């Protein structure tokens, strides 16, 4: 099993309902795969997963990213698509999506509740990921703030994971992951500095790049130059 798949299964712990569905689909897929081919080289299987995932994701390039399950898909894609909600349009639902690496540069794209980011960080920490960056995106129209955590591995097994969560714009608060990753400290301070996102439990949530007496959050879309 390759690292992307491993991490995906680990991350599914965050979503108990999806995990159950995934396990079911997986068992089914495995049975089918065993019937179809007796000896498939693991490398080929991996390639199939990524290729299939690519077809599945290519159609979902419009915002907000909606997860669609591709119709003509191999059993593996079905397994990957099982946790995605069948809804074609509308806001994306929580879950772990296999990203299109060639197009978007990430392998796994997780959308979770603000309260789940610490759990996600713990899972990824145990799996040996490092935190690359934490940043926000201000979605003014939807009146939401998106917080994006970029994770990457440094052991040579390529897997980029992005964990996103959406918080209300009026009250941008979510738990801090500094207890899991001390390196998140400065990134969270930066997100606070630019967006006013308050990370609860952060040891020293102060301005980092802007002057300490600044009374604005420059990257908010309603802050105009």
């Amino acid at each position, binding site marked *: 099993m390759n690292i992307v798949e491993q991490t995906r299964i680990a991350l599914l712990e965050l979503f108990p309902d999806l995990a159950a569905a995934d396990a079911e689909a997986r068992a089914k897929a495995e049975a089918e795969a065993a019937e179809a081919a007796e000896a498939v080289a693991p490398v080929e299987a991996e390639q199939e997963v990524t290729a299939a995932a690519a077809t599945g994701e290519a159609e979902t*390039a*419009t*915002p907000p*990213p909606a997860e669609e399950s591709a119709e003509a898909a191999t059993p593996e894609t079905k397994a990957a698509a099982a946790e995605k909600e069948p809804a074609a349009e509308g806001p994306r639902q929580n879950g772990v999506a296999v990203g299109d690496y060639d*197009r*978007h*540069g*990430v392998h796994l*794209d997780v959308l979770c509740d603000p309260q789940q980011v610490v759990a996600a960080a713990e899972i990824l920490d145990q799996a*040996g*990921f*490092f*935190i*690359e*960056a934490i*940043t926000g*995106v*201000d979605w003014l129209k939807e009146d939401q703030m998106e917080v*994006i955590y*970029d994770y*990457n591995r*440094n*052991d*040579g097994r*390529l897997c*980029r994971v*992005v964990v996103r969560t959406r918080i209300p714009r009026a009250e941008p608060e979510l738990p801090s992951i500094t207890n899991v*990753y*001390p*390196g998140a*400290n*400065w*990134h969270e301070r*930066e997100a606070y500095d*630019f967006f006013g996102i308050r990370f609860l439990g952060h040891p020293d949530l102060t*301005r*980092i*790049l*802007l*002057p300490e007496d600044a009374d604005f959050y*420059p*990257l908010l879309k309603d802050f105009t*130059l």
Partner: protein
Amino acid sequence: MTAPIRCREDETFVLNLGPQHPATHGVLRVKLTMDGEYVVKAEPVLGYIHRMHEKMAEDRTFAQFMPNTARMDYLHALAYNHGYVLTVERAAGIEVPERAEYIRVITVELNRLTSHLLWWAAFLLDLGGFSPLLYAFDDREQILDLLERVTGSRLTYCYFRFGGVYNDIDDDFITGTRNFIKRLRSRLPRLYHDLVTKNIILIKRLKDIGFVSKEQCRKYGATGPLLRGSGVQFDIRKNEPYSVYPEFDFDIPVYDEGDCMARYMVRMDEIEQSMRIIEQALDKLPDGPVRAKVPKILKPAAGDYYAAVEAARGSFGCRLVCNGDKSPYRLKLRSPTFSNLSLFGEVAEGMLLADALAFMGSLDLVIPEIDR
């Protein structure tokens, strides 16, 4: 080597290192709580050269933001050019001609050489050796002349374009580069290694100083020579190949010691590897156009894009959020030294002042890149 710290709270004092200090190479300020010569607590204070490039990006078209990328890491500006164009090309689905990719690799690696040479010079200056500065600048100047010929500027390059590069390289550049590599090859062992690397004072000052473990690197998200000096073989050029790097045969130098000497050796070996890449790229350089046809105003499809490159100081990543407009909806620039510096406080605790500064020098800080 450091003795256990036994100090009373009222016996410490605060030493304000910077924002103007010879060892911080720019406008970094470190608030040091000292017990005599021992550092009890070190808090870097950032933001003295913060320019909010990310907000500027939201206000400009994709092409207009190009010059900004060079003004973050002014020592390895082309890598930042590269990271940005890679992200936008990925978003807009632009194919780059092969010759342009080769030219990108050649210029980026030349630029990496200048960055490492300048680091070497500045690091030795931190350690009190002044002469190496001028030896390294002598070599660096040759590269700057070469790059000036093709890019038009000496430091803050704006050479890459979406779908290629601005200018084709000529024969003068190619022979100049080959001559330069020959020259640096002959100078490296004598002027750099015999005189400095093998110097007993230097070895004694760097060995076992500033130990950073693998786990610390992971927890803080450290990348680049800092990570490779701690025994982790991680280089975006190999691990997540982009451009035409898979075509070349080069090694990723890794040292397990995790001290300042290991980081020093990683960078010195990387100079060698960069020269190998440049030589191979010059040998294989294909003919053809250097720029694809790309519309003047780019409007990538809405979505989220990420691309990373290996800059001289670590992995530089660009997260681009598009909403189908002609300028980025959000552009997050992940600079490597921001993460690398964040472990300074933890490691510097309990070190002597001079060792802490040697450790800071070995991190290879470029302040505009941290502050963005």
